[in-house]
């Protein structure tokens, strides 16, 4: 049986989308059937990053109940030179669509939760997917909490920024703990992890601060900034240290 993974963070710009895309590509390259969902309806990015040209249906339509999930999924397996492994469900980046999604009421959000939960049956059981990865909005957004509640595993992307550390810690106690979610932390934009001792130090510090396991640490890579969101590192740069870190994370999740 496959699993649902929600990638979330307290603040924006912590690397959720980068992590989601590359984790999806890494799983797909390991022969897993993966679908990546853009659930950041306030600031959709998958459509732009993956250069999606006006699809007939968006993830917005599935959550609105106007189409089946199969109509939304786009096959991106070609992008990583494989077949039937990588699918994407993008969110509509049009301003009107963002406005529409931010004006939803509690009843709509409740139905949306039902539709996210239904993906377990339609995609994991029905279509043989191994992983569904939800890229979410930062903070305590309705759509993000819906994703967290539906997920089997929550990956929290965080940095050493003080307001991020503080917010993440609160979020872990007051949100994830209440839903009894299995949670792992990914520390991003880490400076100086070259020596073994500093790596161990960071690991101990993270476990101390957050009291959840550390899935991985990603150093600050200028190459990632230079790529301007045009590169799927896990595919385009197989020898890059970032790709290797992602492989290690995927391997660890596989074994959970």
């Amino acid at each position, binding site marked *: 049986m496959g699993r649902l993974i929600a990638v979330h963070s307290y603040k924006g710009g912590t690397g959720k989308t980068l992590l989601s895309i590359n984790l999806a590509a890494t799983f797909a390259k390991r022969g897993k059937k993966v679908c990546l969902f853009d659930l950041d309806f306030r600031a959709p990015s998958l459509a732009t990053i993956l250069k999606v040209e006006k699809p007939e249906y968006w993830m917005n339509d599935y959550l609105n109940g106007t189409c089946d999930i199969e109509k939304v999924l786009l096959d991106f397996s070609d992008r990583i030179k494989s077949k039937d492994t990588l699918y994407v469900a993008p969110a509509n980046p049009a301003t009107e669509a963002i406005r529409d999604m931010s004006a939803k*009421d509690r009843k709509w*959000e*409740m139905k949306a*939760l039902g539709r996210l*939960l239904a993906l377990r049956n339609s995609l994991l059981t029905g279509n043989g997917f191994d992983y569904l990865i939800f890229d979410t909005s930062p903070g305590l957004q309705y759509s993000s909490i819906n994703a967290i509640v539906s997920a089997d595993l929550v990956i929290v992307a965080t940095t050493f920024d003080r307001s991020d550390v503080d917010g993440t810690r609160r979020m872990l106690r007051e*949100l994830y703990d*209440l839903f009894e979610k299995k949670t792992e932390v990914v520390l991003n934009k880490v400076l100086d992890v070259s020596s073994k001792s500093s790596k161990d130090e960071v690991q101990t510090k993270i476990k101390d601060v957050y009291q959840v396991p550390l899935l991985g640490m990603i150093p600050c890579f200028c190459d990632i900034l230079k790529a301007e969101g045009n590169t799927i590192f896990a595919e385009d740069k197989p020898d890059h240290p970032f790709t290797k870190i992602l492989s290690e994370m995927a391997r660890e999740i596989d074994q959970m």
Partner: protein
Amino acid sequence: MESAAVAAQDLSSRKPTLILEKIRESLERLNEKIEVMIELTKHDRRDIEQPIADAPLDVMTLLSMPDHLRKTAMTACRLGRATADEIAQQTHRARAVESSYLNQLVIMGHMKKERKGRKAYFYVDRESQG
């Protein structure tokens, strides 16, 4: 003639069983009602007597619930439609406990309850609301 006698005998032997079944059903219903009353008194919610119509079980509502109810509600969300027994298997709590929590959620308007024969099914009514 002989077969009619057998049928009559069969009926007379089944009758006490049927009556016992009915008594058992009534007792179970009574038990559920008592469980709900106990639960409501425990959490000092005697004020809630009538089910509140249409209180959506959204994530913010889940977040603000007391821990014991959230666990039941989350499990019910995941299973879709379930009996107190099925919920109890997931939460590792006693069936009677889950039954009272589920009934409380029904009273609060977050869930619906439907009887099918001797079984009571609980579910989140997502489609009829709004």
